[in-house]
């Protein structure tokens, strides 16, 4: 089943409340996905590169990591530990070296970017949101997902959102049927999915199209030609937010727009706490139709 929520602010007045509003939206979708939850949130752009990392043994993995990376790079690295995740702020140009170091230590990378942070774990959405303190986070836009697994195991890495390039993330409700073929084609282009999950293939597909020069709308349009199966995708980029549904459109979706925000929910329930929702324009996104907003 799965539940999706998304909120893209058009004005700055709600920025301090982004995490709080997204948390309420995420919890409202618990019935649709009680086994794991995740959120990608676009906060203030950092001076360097933000890298969200994760470990099943955070005490062991994160102790001394900041100092070790400082020594490795010979430049200041900051680390903020949040439960099983940590957000590193790295000097520009150090990503490859840090990736190699973390791989050696068995520490997973959830996403990188100037402003995006990703947190996802197994458990009820309310518990996942509380563990990471999502309510306290500010930002310009964010995307969340509650998962009821169908195509791969209930694990942290199987939870959404998936991030496959800088400041990009994707969540998915549905299941893809041609992901193995597309996975091989993407791997040849250098976009290698890290898991066996079908959704990660869709995320890699969007990343590959953006890297080839497509804009967000064109990349989303491409999913209708190249991906087969059931899908409602919601995609975030550094300054953008997009939605597309497959032509059959059996996975539910509803959108709301006011002067202040654009919101996405698998159901109307996700909008019940949004300010000004009584006067919002509310509609169901059309099948095989791309919607996107950029600031």
């Amino acid at each position: 089943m799965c539940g999706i929520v998304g909120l893209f602010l058009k004005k700055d007045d709600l920025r301090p409340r982004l995490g709080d509003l997204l948390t309420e939206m995420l919890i409202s979708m618990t019935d649709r996905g009680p086994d794991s939850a995740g959120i990608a949130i676009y906060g203030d752009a950092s001076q360097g590169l933000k890298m969200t990392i994760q470990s099943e043994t955070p005490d062991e993995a994160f102790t001394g990591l900041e100092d070790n990376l400082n020594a490795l790079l010979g430049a200041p690295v900051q680390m903020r530990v949040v439960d099983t995740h940590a957000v590193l702020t790295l000097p520009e140009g150090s990503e490859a070296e840090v990736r190699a170091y973390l791989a050696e230590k068995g520490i997973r990378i959830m996403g990188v970017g100037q402003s995006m942070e990703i947190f996802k774990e197994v458990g009820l959405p309310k518990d996942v949101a509380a563990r990471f303190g999502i309510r306290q986070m500010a930002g310009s836009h964010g995307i969340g997902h509650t998962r009821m697994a169908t195509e791969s195991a209930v694990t942290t890495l199987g939870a959404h959102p998936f991030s496959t390039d800088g400041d990009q993330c994707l969540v998915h409700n549905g299941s893809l049927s041609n992901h193995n073929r597309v996975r091989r084609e993407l791997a040849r282009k250098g976009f290698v999915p890290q898991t066996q999950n079908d959704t990660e293939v869709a995320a890699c597909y969007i990343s590959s199209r953006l890297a080839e020069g497509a804009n967000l709308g064109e990349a989303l349009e491409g999913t209708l030609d190249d991906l087969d199966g059931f899908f409602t995708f919601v995609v975030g980029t550094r300054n953008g937010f997009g939605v597309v549904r497959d032509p059959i459109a059996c996975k539910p979706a509803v959108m709301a727009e006011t002067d202040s925000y654009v919101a996405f929910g698998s159901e109307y329930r996700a909008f019940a706490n949004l300010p000004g929702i009584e006067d919002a324009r509310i509609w169901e996104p059309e099948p095989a139709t791309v919607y996107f907003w950029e600031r």
Partner: protein
Amino acid sequence: MTTMANTQVREDLDIGLQPRTIDMAWTELRELNSTLQAQTGGEWVIENTRGAHALAVGLQAPLEVTIKGSTGYYCAGMNKEARVHVTGSVGPGVAENMISGSVVVEGDASQYAGATGHGGLLVIKGNASSRCGISMKGIDIVVHGNIGHMSAFMAQSGNLVVLGDAGDALGDSLYEARLFVRGKVKSLGADCIEKEMRPEHIEILRDLLARAGADARPEEFRRYGSARKLYNFNVDHAGDY
């Protein structure tokens, strides 16, 4: 047209009874539905719906129910005799399997509105999305706006009236339901064809439009129905499936 007699929309309110209000901020869904299911009549208002699922389902008496706001899945399902009015929009499966009575939605309806309905009248004043009236079995559905793809799939009887446009594959594998569309039809499904609008169809449509409060003339509509080629499997028609 055996279903018309008991589907008048909001014409004979019980003047003597005060409306009773149920606030969903303090009420469990099962309590709401069991309370309403136990009534023999009266006027009820449901507030603070916040998109909840399965509101006012399984009603079996001529209640007058107003749902303030928008609802989730399966609003007013399995309705019999009650008249349900939703002031907002509804999620998937509104008025599913309705037997009689009426459901009026001021806003839009999501997928499969009025699915499998046996009777009664469903009015959507906004748009309905895909699969509207799928497998309808005698219900009358009037949509003031547009309907999405695969609407009236395998529809067996009853009338689907659309003042706006219809999406792809209208009336695929249709049996004996009548489809009336005023706007454009993107495409017809397998075995669905345009048919002649005869005087009896104009009369059916005039009555439905009046009862649905729709501002349209029956002469503006086209009628679609079954070509009746797919009733029994015939190997010569295999390509039509």
